[in-house]
């Protein structure tokens, strides 16, 4: 089995760590060797949050530069920032809705034009799946379900050895009752959208 190194990146509060944890649990549930790593602490206060899921025989919990097979990014500027982890055969899945950092809000820095940025990425990597994931989360009637949308997209585009049933089981086991339906809907919307892309 080929080792798959997946890096999830986003902004504090977007639910990136939960997505990695669920993917890890689904892999284990499917009997696959898996290691997950995450960074807590300072980064949670609106900073960049990165986590990694490594499915396969590897023991290392982190992914080095130029060695991510899949990048799932919850925010377009963070997609650009994390490209140091990519190589020419990397699959990049990204939400295109900007979440500008406050350095932009106070005029210290400019936010790059997302469309142009996506065009640059598309030329560098094997495949880019880019869509407004936040819109899908809102369509699922749960603006906080972007992480489920991105997981759905990962399962559609990622050629993962983990069955969809396993991740849905974990979403069911780990969602609060009032979010369960919208979480599953968000997953399906992400899955459908990335499947068509």
């Amino acid at each position: 089995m080929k080792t798959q190194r997946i890096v999830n990146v986003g902004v504090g509060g977007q639910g990136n760590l939960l997505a990695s944890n669920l993917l890890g649990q689904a892999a284990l549930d499917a009997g696959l060797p898996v290691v997950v790593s995450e960074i807590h602490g300072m980064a949670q206060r609106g900073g960049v949050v990165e986590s990694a899921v490594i499915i396969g025989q590897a023991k290392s919990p982190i992914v080095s530069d130029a060695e991510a097979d899949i990048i799932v990014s919850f925010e377009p500027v963070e997609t650009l920032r994390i490209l140091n982890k990519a190589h020419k055969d990397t699959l990049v899945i990204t939400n295109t809705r900007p979440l500008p950092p406050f350095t932009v809000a106070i005029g210290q820095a400019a936010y790059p034009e997302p469309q142009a940025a996506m065009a640059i990425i598309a030329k560098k990597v094997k495949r880019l799946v880019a869509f407004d994931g936040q819109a899908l989360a809102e369509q699922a009637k749960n603006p906080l379900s972007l992480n489920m949308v991105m997981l759905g997209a990962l399962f559609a585009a990622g050629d993962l050895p983990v069955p969809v049933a396993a991740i849905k089981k974990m979403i069911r086991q780990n969602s609060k009752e009032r979010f369960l339906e919208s979480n599953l809907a968000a997953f399906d919307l992400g899955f459908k959208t990335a499947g068509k892309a």
Partner: protein
Amino acid sequence: MDRLLTPGGGKSHLLLGNEAIVRGALEAGVAFATCYPGTPSSEVPDTLYRLRKESPEAVQYYFEYSTNEKVALECAAGAAVAGLRTLCTMKHVGVNVAADPLMTLAYTGVNAGMVLLTADDPSLFSSQNEQDNRFYARLSGLPMLEPSGPAELKECTVYGFDLSEQLGVPVMLRTTTRVNHAREAVTFNKLGKVKTQAQFKKSPFQYVTVPAVSRQLHLKLLKVYDQAQAISEQSSLNFVTGKGKLGIVAGGVAYNYVMDAVADLDAAKQVKVFKLGFSWPLPEKALVKFLKSVDKVLVVEELEPLVENALKALAQENKVKARIAGKGPKLFSRAYEFNPRLVREVMAGYFGLKYKATKPLKLDDLPALPNRPPNLCPGCPHRATFYAVKQVVGDTAIHPTDIGCYTLGLLPPISMADFVICMGSSVSSSGGFSRATDQKVVSFIGDSTFFHSGITGLVNAVHNNHNFTLVILDNGTTAMTGHQPHPGVETDKIGDPTTHIDLEGVVRGLGVQHVTVIKPFKVRASIEAIKAAVDYQGVSVIISKELCPLFARRVAPKSRKPFAVNLDKCKGHLDCIKKVACPAMFVEDGKAKINALQCIGCALCAQICPENAILPVKAEA
């Protein structure tokens, strides 16, 4: 019931390293646990706390968040000397705080298993330094275990309790962020039986460390070291894998990078690896045997070259011919954590193995990216307090600060952090700054940090007639590390059976003459109070009291009343954005706007706006 409390064994669960420590402690029958939270250790105590709260009928251990690490270790020492199995957890710099009791607890020893977790943070993800706490094993003479991942972490925790009991001294369990915060499958064994009641047997000439006693205890500790070394020689935590004439010695997460590199470099037939899991005392005989069996040795250890230097000394004494290397040019650095690629590259280079690296992408054509530093949350009361203080003292005052969310006051536009080295240093260093200069000194400390180690500094300041203003940012919780309780927490809010210590009463009791409690979201009144405090000659204290909004959302939920900018009134001064940088605000077409989803209605910006253009959403409509 939580999976961590499953009584039986056999099943595997995906556990965070820190959860694996908890499961290990439960399997070992832990009866007593103390801590001070700190990344990357915090989920250990948080899990113990949560399990006790959620399933009081299923847990048998006593647990407390102690005031600081020294207190945690001393409290744990009492229980372990009395005869209970005890776990004590802290981050690496916490061990500095606990170092005083640790050095002599090593002399007295303990009467039941005691494991001390030191969670190190190479690459400083959430710390003020990246000190290598393997030194503490050498300094104290205590044994140290260094697991590589969550599964081993659970096994090492159980092993540590047994080893501690066997040797009669505490055992240090040393992790790094990548071990604490990794998740992997951990196989459960049965929960251990818990001995919850001890009977202390007096033995003053063992436990009262006057010089005459300690002279003997030191000799005893040296014997324990010899015993520990003999166990280390035979320990299942130290083992050799692979074969070949190229040798590697590695421990901790670096061992995992090495094993992946061996596979990636297809070098299993050339590389032999000595895994060091029981890392102090070093299994010297086994290591010498290993060194003699290979031609070339690479030591793969993060941070300081402790094992490397020890091996070089051993090699010299034992006429080992193999070249030994670790740190140096083209090898490993003493700074920052390792990663799989780095280890693979150094191994390939040093051993002359064939290696084709994946090429990094060319990224020089990417647009400039805006930085995304961490920021105080929308509605954080610290922001309001910083703003009010700045209105009084401008940019010229010196601001010693402390460890907590408010350290983020470092960043513009707040820019109100001038010096921080450790917990509590804000208060004590203020005395130095104010004596050495004629500049105003207004320092900041959080409530949890004040109880941790601000109190003694404040006693010193009052006693020695220093002259500064201390602002205690009292948000009612330990916010930065995940809302753990502390002595000042209003215990009724969280339903804990602990006793609330009144912060203001403490400050007054320490002899501070000028004490004012402010509500930071009342901006004008706060500014007046701060003015009076800063004008006061001597030590003055401002207690800025407002719950952390994230904590409040859990313990005292209120309906959120977001604000909005009336765009007809807004003249685009943008004071609201330029002066306080609330993440809920942004600029569009030269005017301020508020993200209603993020705004919690603290009304700070509304009080800053010169046009009174910021109003509650309802009032605007």
